[in-house]
């Protein structure tokens, strides 16, 4: 056979191959070497078919084996005669493989005319299993009508063991994932339970609602820094008989269960002390004694607090209070000014010998509001990582706010706290007592 080259001359391509080998940029091949190759090369297609490094199988459309190569016969331990016309391809598969063949392989082959790389196991004459990869193609006639199925079969023992490793790894990963999920759910349930305990305990340390005081508007707010930990801030308002009411607000050192225990002791001590003697100095002194007696040495703890009484006289309220190391309260006056009460200098409670407390007394005229707070407010960062709020800024804030009733003051401060967002790092308690404007 000849073909026309680019320059239009006819050349015998076979004769050219040797003569022009050096022109084509390939390696030089001389006639002798070519002859050697030819001798080595497969000159028998039958030999190539039978001894190919893979199994060959031709089956009729119904699966009956029509032709099989020696390689596959050897792998399976069958003779050619045992297979051809006697067995179907599916007969060579394991039972599970047969199911897979019928439900996946055969439908795919019927629909697509070819299926490649399906992992199956063949069963040898002695029952031995041979993992293989199977590829099948439907041979069609001139009209496109299917005639027979040609199948190649590759030994996949090594590959299958590798895949089994992969599968095992995948299953382990899935198992680990499931276990991690389980652990996460358990931890979440634990945390929810803990938060519930914290929330209930926290509530037990605060009054469920402020009692109504005739003629007085009282409002409070508590912001816990964390739902996971009990805070150490506290406040209360309670009747002392007649026209007199006791109140306090403070901050126990620390957080968590230890702080909760101290807070509990502080609250009951203060309430009891007020009943014995309503003088705020006496009350704080009694608290100091109780804390010092209970928490000594290593256990030593302390708190800051403001305690006082409010007594109704006509349309006014006389307030007497004392501070032990606590930030000074603010007094929002009816005239639109705000002043810081001079209660600095009082001792921390429960930590020092020879304590002294800073008293203040004044009258809540109609339109005046007393505001007590803990240092969660004044030490909040105005934005995450930013500078801290301060007593000075709070004073300016109150000055702008006045005159304002108790609830209005608390609402304004709640808005302020919300603006701080994450900057609000500590618990914050607020208590406002207002004499409503006439």
């Amino acid at each position, binding site marked *: 056979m000849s073909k026309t080259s680019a320059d239009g001359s006819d050349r015998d391509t076979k004769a050219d191959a040797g003569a022009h080998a050096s022109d084509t940029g390939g390696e030089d091949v001389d006639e002798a070497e070519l002859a050697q190759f030819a001798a080595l090369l497969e000159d028998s297609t039958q030999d190539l078919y039978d001894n190919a490094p893979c199994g060959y199988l031709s089956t009729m*459309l*119904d*699966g009956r084996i029509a032709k099989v190569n020696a390689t596959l016969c050897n792998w399976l331990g069958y003779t050619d005669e045992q297979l051809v016309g006697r067995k179907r391809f*599916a007969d060579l598969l*394991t*039972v*599970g*493989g*047969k*199911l*897979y063949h*019928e*439900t*996946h392989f*055969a*439908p*795919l082959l*019927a*629909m*697509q*005319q070819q299926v490649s*790389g*399906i*992992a*199956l196991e063949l069963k040898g004459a002695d029952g031995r299993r041979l993992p293989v990869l199977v590829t099948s193609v439907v041979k*069609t006639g001139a009209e*496109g009508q299917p005639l027979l199925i040609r199948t190649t079969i590759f030994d996949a023992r090594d590959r*299958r063991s590798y*895949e*089994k490793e*992969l*599968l095992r790894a995948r299953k382990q990963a899935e198992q680990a994932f499931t276990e991690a999920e389980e652990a996460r759910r358990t931890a979440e349930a634990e945390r929810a339970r803990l938060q519930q305990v914290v929330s209930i305990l926290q509530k037990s340390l605060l009054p469920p609602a402020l009692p109504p005081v005739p003629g007085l508007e009282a409002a409070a707010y508590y912001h816990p820094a964390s739902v996971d930990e009990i805070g150490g801030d506290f406040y209360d308002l309670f009747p002392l008989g007649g026209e007199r009411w006791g109140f306090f607000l403070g901050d126990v050192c620390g957080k968590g269960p230890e702080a909760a225990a101290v807070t509990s002791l502080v609250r009951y001590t203060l309430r009891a002390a007020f009943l014995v003697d309503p003088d705020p100095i006496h009350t704080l002194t009694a608290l100091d004694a109780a804390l010092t007696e209970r928490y000594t040495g290593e256990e030593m703890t302390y708190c800051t607090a403001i305690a006082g009484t409010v007594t109704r006289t006509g349309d006014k309220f006389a307030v007497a209070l004392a501070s032990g190391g606590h930030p000074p309260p603010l007094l929002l006056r009816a005239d639109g000014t705000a002043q810081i009460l001079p209660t600095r200098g009082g001792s921390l409670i429960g930590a020092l010998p020879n304590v002294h407390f800073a008293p203040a007394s004044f009258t809540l005229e109609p339109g005046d509001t007393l505001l007590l707070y803990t240092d969660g407010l004044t030490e909040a960062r105005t934005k995450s990582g930013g500078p801290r709020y301060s007593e000075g800024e709070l004073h300016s804030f109150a000055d702008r706010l006045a005159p304002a009733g108790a609830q209005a003051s608390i609402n304004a401060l709640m808005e302020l706290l919300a603006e701080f967002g994450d900057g609000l790092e500590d618990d914050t308690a607020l208590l406002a007592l207002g004499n409503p404007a006439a």
Partner: protein
Amino acid sequence: MDVVGRNNVVVTGRASGRTLMLAHGFGCDQNMWRLVLPALAERFRVVLFDYVGSGGADSGAWDPERYSTLDGYADDVLEICAALELTDAVFVGHSVSAMVGVLAAAREPARFTGLVMVAPSPCYIDDPATGYPGGFDADDIDELLESLDSNYLGWSAAMAPVIMGNPDRPELGQELTRSFCATDPAMAAVFARTTFLSDSRAELATVAVPTLVLECAQDVIAPREIGAYVHAAIPGSRLVTLPATGHCPQLSAPEATGQEIAAFAGATR
């Protein structure tokens, strides 16, 4: 998602014809009916669908608990019937779907006027107590699950649909994709267990509609003893042995299969 979208429901064929509901079995999807569809669509209104967990159904609707009993698959069938307001339909179920049809017809008889069971088996597991020859044991099913698993690795890369050109076989269309027979292995495993470990022999007696049993001459999954068993258990049923090899006569002998279905469905009233 509504039921029609969830189950990838396709309604085709002659709108005025009797409704045939074609239900695929374990392994592939509604494309199993491709080769018999053209002939059936000429005479009948044909409803095709994929069970959740197969083919083009919404995998988001998968619920391993629901689909671990054949009743869950019957739920799919009845929900599709309700969505399409089907009555007097002929249900054609291949393989495990034949039994799904039995369950669905028992629950809502008014939906169905006839039942075609293609290569059915009410129970694939041998029952030594009664001598029932299911043909398989639990280990065989484990082997099948292994096959599903080991082929998943090879298939995962091909999960994305690939448009297949079929110039030689225009009847397959261009839209047929590699996803035919490619199922999430976890879902396929549940469907395989449900298919091959269920025993619905007792339900055969509940069949109260005309029934055609189509078995294949050579079928390793549902051999002829099983066809005879189903036929005997459903009084008044007709048994036809198709000249087909394998478990899918709608693919290996589409003409004969289509003719039998059409003749039966055309005669029911």
